[in-house]
């Protein structure tokens, strides 16, 4: 997958080394001293200096350098007090849109989109999932119909984070209902300021709305904003999603009692009056599971570090979803009367999930989504069974039938 950048060891052949990266960082700092340079100006300059994502091509924020050297640039700039681009706020752009644009975009698209994406001047969101196309994303119904030099898009998307702040979206839509579902999809960049785009907050069981529903009514997208060939959208989307999985499954070494086990262990230590023998054994079981999940993640990290990633990473999300759910469920029960209460149901729109800023009830409810979002646990088990264990797929009846003839 050219340029998708899914592994850590790829990089350009330019032979750029750590010394050059460091040197360029110092030059940037000298030219644009962080104390006296505005944030936006500094970030633009950093992009232009090739220090945004050093493994990207020169001219597109990178240096064709090995990906691992990004850490050198980051450290050098952070040490000098330089501003960063608030990567949590623009995660979808950085993690999903950018690699896809790099891999499948035209030179014009790359030049137009990547710089403001990286600096955060333009926020991106993702218009993939639909109410009727969750696990079976390829079954999507949103239609895009050619009309001269434009495409006219109608449909409904869901589970879209940042839609209300986004300037652009990556979008997949059905351009040909007469061919089997995987073959009739095309990938677009959608302008979120188009008058046909309506964004509504999607309130969750926690009371808040992290996500949105997006209604698309006669949205016009110029053909120049198509990414990849007509009908090739499924393949393009796979590149996007692979980057999502890498982002979810990766991560670095974490200390013991990180994650959901932390609050419940702390409550146990701080409130002896809540302890019972039965809860004790359940807590110890889950503590063991959490520690083993930590070690398993660490083993995956070690494998990646020596360049031999194994299939073990596929399981991490499964483990974490189960653990988060069981630990938060135990925590609510342990808290007893306090567990009957909830912090606040007021509808708010958080920028990102914060498991630890709120109470046990919030953790319990929010963790239920961990086995649904980003690939349900059921789909992940299918993937493990088929791709890791080599078990045969179930009989499929939907691969060779025109999309319009599928039962729904």
């Amino acid at each position, binding site marked *: 997958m050219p340029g998708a950048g899914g592994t850590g060891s790829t990089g350009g052949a330019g032979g750029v080394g750590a010394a050059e990266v460091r040197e360029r960082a110092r030059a940037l700092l000298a030219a644009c001293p962080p104390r006296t340079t505005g944030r936006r100006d500094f970030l633009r300059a950093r992009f232009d200096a090739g220090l945004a994502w050093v493994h990207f091509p020169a001219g597109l924020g990178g240096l064709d350098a090995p990906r691992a050297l990004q850490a050198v640039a980051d450290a050098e700039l952070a040490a000098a007090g330089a501003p960063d681009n608030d990567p949590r706020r623009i995660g979808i752009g950085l993690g999903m849109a950018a690699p896809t644009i790099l891999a499948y975009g035209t030179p014009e698209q790359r030049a137009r989109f990547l710089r403001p994406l990286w600096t955060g001047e333009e926020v991106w969101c993702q218009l993939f999932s639909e109410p009727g196309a969750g696990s079976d994303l390829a079954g999507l119904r949103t239609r895009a119909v050619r009309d001269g030099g434009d495409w006219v898009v109608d449909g409904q998307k869901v589970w879209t984070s940042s839609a209300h702040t986004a300037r652009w979206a990556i979008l997949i839509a059905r351009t040909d209902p007469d061919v089997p579902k995987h073959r009739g999809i095309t990938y677009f960049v959608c302008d979120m300021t188009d008058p046909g785009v309506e964004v509504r907050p999607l309130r969750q*069981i926690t009371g808040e709305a992290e996500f949105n529903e997006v209604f698309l009514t006669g949205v016009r997208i110029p053909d120049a904003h198509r990414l990849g060939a007509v009908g090739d959208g499924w393949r393009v989307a796979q590149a996007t999603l692979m980057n999502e999985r890498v982002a979810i499954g990766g991560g670095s070494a974490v200390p013991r009692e990180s994650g959901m086990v932390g609050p419940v262990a702390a409550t146990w230590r701080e409130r002896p009056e809540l302890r*019972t023998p039965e809860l004790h054994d359940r807590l110890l079981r889950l503590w063991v599971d959490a520690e083993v999940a930590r070690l398993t993640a660490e083993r995956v990290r070690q494998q990646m570090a020596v360049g031999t990633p194994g299939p073990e990473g596929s399981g991490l999300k499964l483990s974490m979803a189960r653990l988060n759910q069981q630990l938060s469920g135990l925590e609510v029960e342990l808290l007893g009367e306090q567990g009957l209460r909830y912090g606040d*149901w007021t509808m708010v729109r958080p920028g990102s999930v914060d498991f630890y800023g709120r109470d046990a*009830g919030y953790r319990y409810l929010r963790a*239920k989504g961990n086995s*649904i979002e980003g690939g349900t646990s059921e789909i992940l088990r299918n993937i493990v069974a088929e791709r890791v264990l080599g078990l045969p797929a179930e009989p499929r009846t939907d691969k060779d039938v025109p999309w319009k003839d599928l039962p729904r």
Partner: protein
Amino acid sequence: MTTAKRPSPAVPDLLYSEVEDDLRAAVRAVLADRCGPAAVLGRIETAEPYDPGLWKVLGADLGLAGLLVPEEYGGQGASAREAAVVLEELGGAVAPTPFLGSAVLAASALLGCAEAGAPDLLGRLAAGEVTAALAVPLTAAPGDAFPQGVRADAAGRLTGRVTSVVDALGAAALVVPAAGPDGPALYEVAADAAALAAPVSLDLTRPLADLTLDGAPGRLLAAGGAARAALERALLTGAGLLASEQLGLAQWCLDETTGYLKQRHQFGRVVGSFQSLKHRLADLWLEVVSARAAARNAAGALAAWDDPAEVALAVAVAQAYVSPAAVHAAEEAVQLHGGIGMTWEHPAHLYLKRAKADEIALGTPGRHRRALAGLVDLPAAAG
């Protein structure tokens, strides 16, 4: 060293009588009419904890307010078996009503004080004119020590605090366990003599209240052993019947999820044709079937009230089994609905929150297992 296990008494009738079927149909019809998911969702963030119109029909017109109250006090004179059927339906609709707090917990406590001034309050309660609340935290469990958080002086003035009381908001009267001058006692206190605060409840369909009493005048209902017995009986009745609410909730989750999976298509197939989901629903069905037997057994034991230890055993078994089964059913409902189950607009979350709160209510499953250890002679490890 061998100690004998308890003898095995006859199992009560675990089926539903025709009278019970009729009662169920009547309650179900009212709930279908006035308490659908949209109505419940529309109400949960309002200031009114439950629909007074709904409760008027259920409590007064159908007589549920006094279902457990003998006819001599103006009630229906029904047994725990009928109350259990009502709770199945209320649980299946996550209906916000004061049935559990007033008609079960408070009424059962008052029935244990029927010699004192209780009949008056019982009569008004049974008529559906007022509701009452038993002033204990919803986490109180059968077998707990008598509460000491409220003290009563010789003049019958009560001072103290009770948190997380169910169905106290909107109640006219409180039945308050207190440490009186001569030991445990139960008092009747007018609700407006207490300061009530409403914390935010995890279970959106069952508001809680924190009560503060500061020299509130109380009328003595029972003292000493009678007070203890009345409270214990109320808690046993509440815990045992809560299992039927949990059963109804679990059944709804199973039915709704099964129905959803029969309709939803993914990958060109009905989702409910995927074997791993079928097996999970089959397992859940088996849990619900088992929960029904356990809940009916508790209701039957409460209705008969022959051997108190057998009643306690049946209640502990029902709570230990049905509580986690209901949570499991609600969790599976959310998961198997996929994304839609995580949304506020779908009612699944109401069931999840009720199930999780019910798990803690009136004794956690672990608490009931510990009670069972004593009842069936399976003692804990020493030390």
